[in-house]
């Protein structure tokens, strides 16, 4: 339904400013999920805003390469993920931080899973950018292996392998956190 409406708006607007109208319609439709993915990868809200904004600027610049507007979502997701990755790799300034507190974990005090979720946040903060990206695509965006492969430009088998290793590294990070906490 949502896609149909968006396409209809695009069609209506073609006579006046087709490029800008198409951009605005698709950007409006996908902004929330894009921002959410950027936050899942970057953590810091301000960084996520910057990355999302930068990605849409890039999308505007590369608009002529979007041959089929129905394919906007995977096309733009690649741009956004690359923007987030570049930001994470740009230098020490963008090293990962523990974002558990920043992601508004509004669990009740008596939530039996609260400690585990907090540990997840701390564990994610210790992962490398590529691990964090692939976990966000799989467990936040709920993408299929093939969709992740398309987004990252790698074979599906490599996605499976990277997911496996990312989970192992997260598990190791959680175990290390437990050790630290016991040592305290």
């Amino acid at each position: 339904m949502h896609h149909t409406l968006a396409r209809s708006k695009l069609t209506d607007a073609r006579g006046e400013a087709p490029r800008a109208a198409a951009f605005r319609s698709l950007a409006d439709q996908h902004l929330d999920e894009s921002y959410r993915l950027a936050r899942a990868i970057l953590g810091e809200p301000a960084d996520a805003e910057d990355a999302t904004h930068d990605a849409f600027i890039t999308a505007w610049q590369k608009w002529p390469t979007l041959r089929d507007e129905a394919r906007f979502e995977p096309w733009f997701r690649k741009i956004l993920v690359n923007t987030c990755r570049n930001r994470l790799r740009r230098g020490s300034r963008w090293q990962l931080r523990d974002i558990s507190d920043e992601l508004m974990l509004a669990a009740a005090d008596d939530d039996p899973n609260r400690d585990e979720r907090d540990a997840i946040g701390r564990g994610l903060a210790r992962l490398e950018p590529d691990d964090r990206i692939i976990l966000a695509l799989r467990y936040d965006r709920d993408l299929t292996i093939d969709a992740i492969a398309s987004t990252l430009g790698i074979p599906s088998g490599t996605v499976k392998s990277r997911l496996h290793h990312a989970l192992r590294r997260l598990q190791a990070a959680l175990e290390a956190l437990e050790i630290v906490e016991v040592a305290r």
Partner: protein
Amino acid sequence: MNDRRLEALLTDWYARATSAAPEPLRGAVMGVPDLAEGVGDRSRPWSRVPAPHVTSPSVRFALAAFAIVIIAVVGFNLMPTPGGIVGSGSPPSPGSSPSASRSVLPSPSPSWFGAYPPPIGYVSTDRHAVVADGVALSFAMTQVDWESHEYYLSKSDRGSQGAEGIILWAGFPVSDRYEPCFDLLGRSDDPSVDDLAFAVSTVAGTDDIVGPLDVTVGGRAAKFVSFFVSYRALDNLRVCSPGFFYSWETGNLGAMWDYWLPGDTVRVWIVEVDGRILIIEGATHWNAGPELEQEIQQIIDSIRFE
């Protein structure tokens, strides 16, 4: 913890992340086509802080800064010993804009970054000395919270790259950071300060150009140019045309130097020091506020050539 439990926790953890994009971001994204056409509010497209109404380009520029990054380029060498700048810890010149908060006067003794690369961490409020592509200078750091990141320094009050400013100093033609198209086109030699200032003032994809103006830096005659990196700059990506400062870096959407972005305001001081040309840039990103713009000016005003 088994895999299924770990996956369930991950899914739950991500699900608790906020999903709605902030309205200022939405407004900025919706305005990207307008910005590219040059009809939008170009200076601060999605600032979380309401921008005051400003019509003058120079004043608008002054309102664009909120954080500072100092980038020293390749060839940014550090003084090996503190012998050259003894007693140079004077405060910024009277012409500097006063800082809004947490100002700390530099101590009389210079502080040194140490061996290259500079250690990562906060930079002390002190006078610091560097050799930028053969030009020895010192500057006074009067504000706290500036961070060193090996070859550049940064400060961002709100933790956002969009709220940063930049100062870059590099020799010409020693550094290759000015011209990402250098490998493709090569570079003409022996430009004058006037040649370079004119080239900066005519770079494609810039607006609100001020200058070249005659100014002084460290007591020496210099040229000053400022400009806004237009969203039209996007149309100039991958364009390399003859002349100085001709190129736009494709990798990070940056213009001329490193990774300037559309929405940035860049100020350039060009000064000749003992036969060497030094170029100093002070830039601010779109989400920056006025305080760090003042800090940039303080740093420029405090420069001394040794």
